[in-house]
């Protein structure tokens, strides 16, 4: 397997607000290796989420090259892209985005509904994954019966249960207290180090960024430097 996983070259993205074109990303070039853990930092509005969304295949660039694991995802149709996301991307959001009417177990099971796994196989996987994030005893709880940190751990379980190539996290600790935040970061770090998951994490928090192997700064839609952390 080649080490290069994500290749971004001269990526351009703008949004239209009303009839005005608002450029968000100018000429971004970035390479991410397999097994990397990248923190994307930068001021609010600098385009961090936009870049992350493009890599995750939930938005389309206006120009440039974006390949993931050798596949040019900008050329995929909506349907192909959805299938691609289902098998390659695990999402972790700032506000967890769990389904409130589903239990922790059912939330984690959700992405497995798109696979061919049998009921028993699904159950086994979900139980295993929830144990991995330390919530084996909370499987039948609904999101509103869990703390923020626990909810985010359920979300992590949902993100990894399909064994995706990349985890994309948009401010995963943004809504958490210090302790929960460090639990979540520790968990991401372990996923990266022990299970070799490639992680791209957007964060405001310098402390959170320390969990990453590499920090990338964005400012006004441009990458300004790229430093490996100690």
């Amino acid at each position, binding site marked *: 397997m080649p080490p290069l996983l994500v290749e971004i070259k001269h990526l351009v993205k703008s949004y239209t607000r009303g009839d005005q074109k608002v450029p968000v990303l100018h000429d971004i070039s970035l390479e991410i290796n397999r097994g990397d853990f990248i923190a994307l930092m930068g001021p609010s509005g600098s385009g961090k989420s*936009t870049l992350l*969304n493009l890599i*995750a295949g*939930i*938005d389309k660039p206006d120009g440039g090259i974006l390949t993931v694991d050798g596949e040019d995802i900008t050329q995929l149709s*909506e*349907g192909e892209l*959805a*299938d691609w*996301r*289902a*098998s390659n*991307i695990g*999402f972790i*959001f*700032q*506000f967890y*985005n769990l*389904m*409130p*009417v*589903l239990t922790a177990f*059912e939330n984690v*099971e*959700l*992405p497995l*509904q*798109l696979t*061919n796994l049998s009921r028993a196989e699904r159950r086994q996987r979900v139980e295993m994954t929830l144990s991995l994030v330390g919530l084996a005893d909370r499987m039948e709880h609904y999101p509103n019966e869990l703390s923020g940190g626990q909810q985010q751990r359920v979300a992590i379980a*949902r993100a990894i249960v399909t064994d995706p190539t990349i985890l994309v996290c948009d401010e995963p600790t943004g809504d958490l207290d210090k302790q929960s935040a460090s639990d979540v970061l520790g968990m991401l770090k372990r996923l990266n180090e022990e299970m070799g998951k490639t992680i791209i994490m957007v964060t405001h928090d310098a402390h959170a960024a320390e969990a990453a192997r590499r920090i990338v700064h964005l400012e006004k839609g441009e990458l300004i430097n790229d430093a490996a952390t100690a």
Partner: protein
Amino acid sequence: MRRLPDVYYLKLIFKNVFRAKLRSSLTIIGLIIAIVAFGLLQTVVDAWFAGSNAASASRLVTRNAISLVFPMPIYYRERMRTVNGVKSVTLLNWFGGVYKEPKNFFPQFAVDHENFFDLYPEFVMPADQLIAFKRDRQGAAVGRKLANEFGWKIGDTIPIRGTIFSGTWTFTLRAIFDAKDDTTITRQMYFHWDYVNEWLKQKYPRRMEQIGTFVIEVDDPSRTADIAKAIDAEFRNSLAETLTETEKSFQLGFISQMEQIILTIRIVSFVVIFIIMAVVANTMAMTARERSTEYATLKALGFGPGFVAALIFGEALMLSLIGGVLGILLTFPLAKGVGIIAAAVFAVFNVSQSTVLMQLACALVVGVVAALVPGWRSARVKIVDGLRHVG
């Protein structure tokens, strides 16, 4: 290859329906009311037509061509009998009397006691009672429903205050008839026309030997139109020209303004459905807007726009089916209640199978239409736009 949706999704939809409890409950109550109202109104329409369906196709009714209030000479009967296709002729005259109080209204008719019940086989009674009725000049025959209503028994005397035929009349109950089938009305009274005619002879000789309607039995029901024409031709240019029509069109025409009412009822019942459609559509629009982040998340996870639309359609359908089924179930006891209250008007007030199917269809259509716009919109919205609603 993806697996087919399973109970997991049904559960998801079901739980979603009851997330906003107050809103769902109010919507369901609205649906129940609309479906019940629709069902009852349809049943009124059915009951009305059931009444006219009971009319025999092999009977013709002849009345004065000018108006029902003008009579015809009784001797017409002999000439009618000579018309080709006429099997027998009987007499029927509206009496319009009052039993004790006007609110006790029920129809009374003076008839030819000899053959009236031969022409009306839908009224069944014991042979001895029929004989007793024929023998007693002051005898009366009443329907079962009427007898039950006033607790009359064979042999009771029934005083009727005449309005058209003024004075107090006393009849002796000789026969109680039942309906052969449940579309036949048994809330009316028959007695001898001879008895009334005799009275006229004494009091108003100029009004005697006159009758309001002749009822004619034909030997071939497929020829009623021709026979009716032949009868009317018989009396053209005579003092009282006649108008002969089938019993059914006679009954429908008799209260033709009822048809306007029926039409109005029909329109109202569909307006009710239309209103509830708007209510459910509003509920679904609010619901879908609140859940835009969830739908965007589902799409990010790899679920297609069709799946999101299916969730919304499923939810709207489940909502409208819950309301619809509860409404249908509630229609039956309510129709029973209405049937008792309206017993004087309708012989039958039963919720028909087609009414239930229409109620079900209305519920389904309401669900589908209510989900159209929110389903389409939620399926189309871009993932990043949906996710930006967070917080």
